């Protein structure tokens, strides 16, 4: 509702002067749905934005060993870069191990992040099927999904992450 408080006075101003034309040059180029679908890689926790396609744990194991393992280690641990698996149940301890599996509240974040940013040396080079598959493989290591899981736009948002209830939203800032 707050947006109306901001926009109404601007509209009123337009009626009485030409100032609004200077304030709103309206020079943006209208976009077609096709153009947007090519650009939009945002995936929300409810699954909106997930593309067509699917991937199994076994297909993901192949993608992982070829494209991820040299940095992240066998089964997501012991590599030179970030640990991806393990740490489940440690978050409330003195030595929390924050991994995508132990800490991240939604499985969609793994898909979203891998698709936009991984592998580090060739981001956005994976197919949607490969991203579904490697997400399934990472989640299978700590048995968040079963060995025979196939993830797609319908099943991925339903994956229950171990720390799904671990976050307290701090916006809007709670009153003291």
């Amino acid at each position: 509702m707050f947006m109306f408080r901001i926009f109404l006075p601007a509209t009123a101003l337009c009626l009485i002067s030409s100032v609004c034309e200077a304030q709103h040059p309206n020079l943006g180029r209208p976009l077609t749905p096709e153009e947007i679908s090519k650009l939009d890689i945002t995936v929300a926790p409810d699954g909106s934005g997930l593309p067509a396609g699917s991937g199994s744990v076994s297909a993901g194991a192949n993608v992982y060993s070829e494209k991820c393992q040299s940095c992240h280690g066998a089964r997501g641990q012991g590599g030179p870069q970030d640990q991806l698996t393990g740490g489940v149940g440690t978050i409330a301890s003195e030595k929390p191990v924050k991994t995508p599996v132990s800490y991240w509240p939604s499985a969609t974040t793994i898909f979203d992040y891998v698709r936009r940013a991984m592998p580090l040396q060739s981001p956005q080079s994976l197919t949607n099927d490969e991203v579904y598959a490697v997400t399934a493989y990472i989640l299978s290591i700590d048995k968040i999904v079963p060995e025979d899981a196939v993830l797609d736009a319908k099943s991925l948002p339903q994956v229950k992450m171990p720390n799904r209830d671990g976050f307290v939203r701090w916006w809007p800032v709670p009153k003291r």
Partner: protein
Amino acid sequence: MERHDRVKNDRTKVGALAGGATARDGFDRRTLLRAGIFVAGIAGIGSGIAQAAESIGADAPEWMKAPGRSFSTYGVPSKWQEKVQRAIAFPPGRPGTGSSRTPLHLLEGTITPNGLHFERHHNGVPDIDPSRHELVIHGLVKRPLAFSVETIMRYPMESQIHFVECSGNSGSFNQPEPQQTTAGGLNGLLSCSEWTGVRLATLLGEAEVTREAKWVVAEGGDAAAMSRSVPLEKCLDDAMIALYQNGEAIRPEQGYPMRLLLPGFEGNMNVKWLRRLKVMDQPVNARDETAHYTELMPNGKARQYMFLQGVKSAIIKPSFGMNMKGPGSYEVSGLAWSGSGRISKVEVSADGGKSWAVAALTAPVLSKALTRFRLAWQWDGRPSTLMSRATDEKGEVQPTRSAWVSQYSPVQFYHFNGIQGWRIEADGTVKHVYV
């Protein structure tokens, strides 16, 4: 000719003043000035006698006895300042994913030179061709729009001075022992610039966000396509599409050709190389708002979407590496800032927090900008502990380090804003201490 003579006369005077300044202290400034002129008078008489035999520049430095170098197309700092550099750190094998820190301890004032603004990248600095870059606004809008760089340049602009601080700045304060490093090493993921650009509200107004809209997901055009969820409320308030930094086009390290600027919000959200804004009814749990930049508490719960940088200050002078040259007069100075508004007060203690004195704030004191505080200090040569404590216009007071640490899990280091301290030893060395 007349003007030339005047310049020459002024130079004589300056030289004389420099000679006068070598005199023992104990004089006040006015006395010193008079003494200097007096010496100049005598020196003038003396040199008049000697001039017959010797050129007048015999004792002048070499840079006064030969022409200086020609002009430069883009100036660089003096070679004598070559140690004033950012300190770079990145994980092995990932040269594009670390950070570099502003050397706060080697700078003065409040504006960070563009080449020294801190950096935090997630997969390197992209080399974006502005003629191929567009900012796209879509999602819960009536009219999805794309703006070329050239187009955005035609919109009404504004300039605002604001700090940007990484959410992980001063993160080493969560360690059990104080890190012995410079003020810039501790707090240098912090910079302040004059940003010029277009209000985001103007562009969102043209796209016409719908009634369901609550969040805007911003995405960068880098090789990490770094993305963050921003409350729509902030986007319609003081958010800016920044195109210029301190008068010149934003540097590649800061988001060329454009970045999102969210005054007072954690650095990571000020998405660089901004290419896309998706208006949504929900935040997206982007990697950097789940894996990072959350606040893990001892009970295992984590605060998420904590955006405001807390009220904070740090003494920059003296600090680690700037040892005292014996008892006497010193200026204690430092920086204070708050993500919620203006700094209203900075207090300084020299006795570890037993007593506090109010420091002077150097004008202008701007909202969500670095503020310089200063206080004259007579050091008696005894061991002392210097601390600073800032209060902002909302009445928020900088907490103690122990109060800050006790709220969180031992691994928590984001958003540290506790009080910092420097121990001055009797021999003048300056050590980092927890207070």
